[in-house]
């Protein structure tokens, strides 16, 4: 990747670049941001995130913040949560949002897709049992809808229920009377969002970041 470039003063970037696929520039910028967020310490804590004003208005901020501290997203097949993350983990999480490059094969695209969908799935599946249960889904829907004023919980519940129903129908088709639908597994999740071009949509453009506009 960027191995031919010589970056003065930051040899560790080479490693990171290889691991995450970012370019040196992007890593540099993200490092700056990391330092700003963590007030020049080496690790980020959850409290640091709550200081970002715009994030407060986001309905699913707790899930987003949680995702950063979730070991499953560190690509090391870990589980559970951590309390603080270093720059490397920060980068790894950010790498979930890289756009696919222009010339990718089908398999690479597919793996990028799975990766991003896995990220979203982990955001839902808070108890890490591999399925999204109805309760978890409801929770998410309620949070999503909490922005609209005229909403009550039951609406959110019923929407979540309807959504589960849809998933059940799509993934399982016909079910016997005494079967019940446990929850959405990752495979069902994939199937559900089959047509959704997540690999093209779930991207942050790390190209043009202006660190001076940060830190409001």
């Amino acid at each position, binding site marked *: 990747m960027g191995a031919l470039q010589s970056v003065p003063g930051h040899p560790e970037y080479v490693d990171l670049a290889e691991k995450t696929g970012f370019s040196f520039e992007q890593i540099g910028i*993200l490092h700056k*941001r990391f330092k700003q*967020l963590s007030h020049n310490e080496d690790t980020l804590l959850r409290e640091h*995130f709550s200081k970002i004003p*715009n*994030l407060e*208005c986001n*309905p699913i*901020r707790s*899930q*987003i913040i949680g*995702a950063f501290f979730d070991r499953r997203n560190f690509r090391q097949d870990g589980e559970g949560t951590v309390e603080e993350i270093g720059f490397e983990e920060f980068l790894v999480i*950010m790498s979930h*949002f890289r756009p696919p490059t*222009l010339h990718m094969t089908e398999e690479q695209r597919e793996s990028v897709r799975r990766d991003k969908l896995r990220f*979203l799935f982990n*955001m839902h599946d808070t108890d890490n049992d591999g399925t999204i249960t*109805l309760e978890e889904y409801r929770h998410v*829907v309620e949070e*999503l*809808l909490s922005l*609209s*004023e*005229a909403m*009550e*919980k*039951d*609406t959110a519940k*019923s*929407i979540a*229920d*309807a*959504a*589960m*129903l*849809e998933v059940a*129908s799509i993934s399982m*088709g*016909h*079910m*016997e*009377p005494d*079967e*019940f639908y446990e929850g959405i597994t990752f495979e069902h999740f994939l199937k*559900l*969002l*089959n*047509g*959704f*071009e997540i690999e*093209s*949509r*779930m991207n*942050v*453009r*790390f190209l*043009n*970041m202006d660190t001076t*506009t*940060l830190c409001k």
Partner: protein
Amino acid sequence: MERRGVSSVLLLLLMLCCCFGGNGELQESKPPEATTAPAGVDLFPNVLDEAQAFPDEEKARLPVFTMDYPRIQVPFEFTLWVLLASFAKIGFHIYHKITIWIPESCLLIAVGLIVGAIMHSVKEEPPAVLNSNVFFLYMLPLIVLDNGYFMPTRPFFENMGTVLWYAVVGTVWNSIGIGISLFAICQFEVFGVQDINLQENLLFASIISTVDPVAALNVFEDIGVNEQTYIVIFGEGLFNDAVTVVLYNMFTFLAALPVVEPTDVLVGTARFFVVALGGILFGLLFGLAAAFTTRFTHNVRQIEPLFVFMYSYLAYLVAECFAISSVMALITCAVTMKYYVEENVSQRSCTTIRHVVKMLATISETLIFFFLGVVTITTEHEWNWAYILFTLLFAFIWRGIGILVLTQIINPFRTIPLNFKDQFGLAYGGLRGAICFALVFTLPDDINRKNLFVTASVAVIIFTVFLQGISIRPIVEYMNIRKTNKDLKNINVEIHSRMMEHVLSGVEDLCGQWSHYYWKDKFKKFNDRVLRRILIRDNRAESSIVSLYKKLELQNAIGLLDGPMGDISAAPSIVSLQDERKEAARPKRKFLAADVRKMHDILSNNMYKIRQKTMGYANKYNLPDDSRTREILIRRHASIRRSVRAESFRELPSQNIPKSQKYYSLQPGGDLENAFALRRRGHGGSGDVGRLSTSSSRSHVPMRRLKTISETGKAGEQPAASSPPPGPEASDGSRPGSLQGRRGGKGPVPPPKRRLSGRVDGEGDPGPVQPPRLPPPGGWTPEDQDPRANETLLRDPSSS
């Protein structure tokens, strides 16, 4: 057989119309010989001739039969033309295959050619109505309004930069490229076109580079080509009208000047920006004014569509007056207006607006194409092989190169880059059309070699429309351009895409990155806080998830009302609604019938519940004069009532439910009860509702709601009922109700359901209370309970 018959009749009519149209003009052109002042043809011409010789003998005899053609001529011929074109359209659609393979514009031009040939053979001139004013003031706005009103806004705003890039820069590139190349060709003496100077070439080139991709769009839409390509070509077609008109005016002006200074070019560029931005500003003003006006129109529903049209047209005319881009003004007005107006006006007005916009645009475009066909045959052409062939060649080349170069420049800025196939689709889809023709036809006559220009553009148009229009479909299918996934009417996908957007804007905030999600968020907040409050009468900020959900449920409810009710043997009356019945193979039915019933139950339950809740908030679904669902349901009820009166419903006589009860339930808040009553009836046998979540720990809420059907009897929360049939209540009351008793008014659910819902609830599941009750009678009971239930619900603090 029948088709042939119909089409031959249509052809005959076509001929008759032509002849009549032709004859009418014939009569007009020959000076009336026999008669004098009022051009009346008397039935007894001889008498009148004689009478002329002796004027004093002329008595005012009451003519029995007169004909005064010239008086009505213009509107008559206009109507005839439009009618003719419409017949032609009917004709095309008889054979469905034709319209798949041959775009409509081809067919219209073909019919125009035929009519032109007929007219030519009777030595007739086409009515000289297409002049500059008529086109710019009456025809163009209709076409543009249609395009602007139905523009898909979300993809547009996501791809706005790209669209504008192609539209503006692309058109300018094409014009200048073609113009200069043609000028270079003109320098060769051998072609005989030396007298066309640079300005005129540029003018012609700017006209020729307008694309009108209607046919390509239809094909793309049918095939389902990916959204980015679609919106780019749509937007390009839309905005390059604006650009072309500006260039056209500029070059016309320049063409009249003997010498062009470089400062003129700079001024021209500056003018371009003034014109574009001014147009947008005007459009915004009028759009917001229209939105604001519709806030107050709830008492004058009949004239609501009028506001949309009048304000758009005003925007267009005022912009024309100040010589700024009227097309931009109209587009901006339509886009701004649409969002707010559609929330304020009634469902009927909304439908009316859409239909009228489409209709007017169709008339306008049809007439232009038709005219094209006629003019092709009947005018004097100046054919110059070299010029025309080179025009064609350059049009292709420059468009191809243009798309290629422009895409390379803009791809790095896009998240989803356009690949080569997309680019080919874009380049090949650049058909020329109506606007191009109209612009060239209305060139001022003092332009040198105007006829050559007309001929050349007609040639280009016919070539592109016929050749490219017909071949684009097989080529696109063969090339297998990346398709879009159209099936996004899925709650899950909506939820997850919302979620993804929030995640993205969260991460962007984290990184300090501003991108279009950030702006989208900001705009949405501004919209919700400021704009919606001012412009919308009845403001409830609604998440798109909820709107989609409600929409789906509404569809389901309607589908339930007129679809086949699976296993209900006891509802012959519903079955007898043959005229409203749809086939069982409705789009969502890839699941088994049981699943579907289950889904529908749950969804309908939830819809019922949502409606109940939102009733408290003067939701527009609830207004007595305005309910969207009510309109639909009333129609259904009317037909159901008819069938009920026919006494085909065997259970009905056994109930003493006065018919008035049904009407009563149509009052505000009650309108959906009927729906559910009927649905209940319909779902009599649908069992297994609790399939999804049978473990009691999962107390699946909707299941619980079903159960409360049994709780109509819970007197605690119901005010005194008016003669409810005691049966269901008694047995129902025996159930331990757990709930909120929110849902009153559901008829006795047939046994299997009850059993399951009991199980689901997991609360001391009593032995299945299975009143041997048939669904139908139960179905009627809710009606008289519903109002009570409604009151209950209304009184309940429904904020749970």
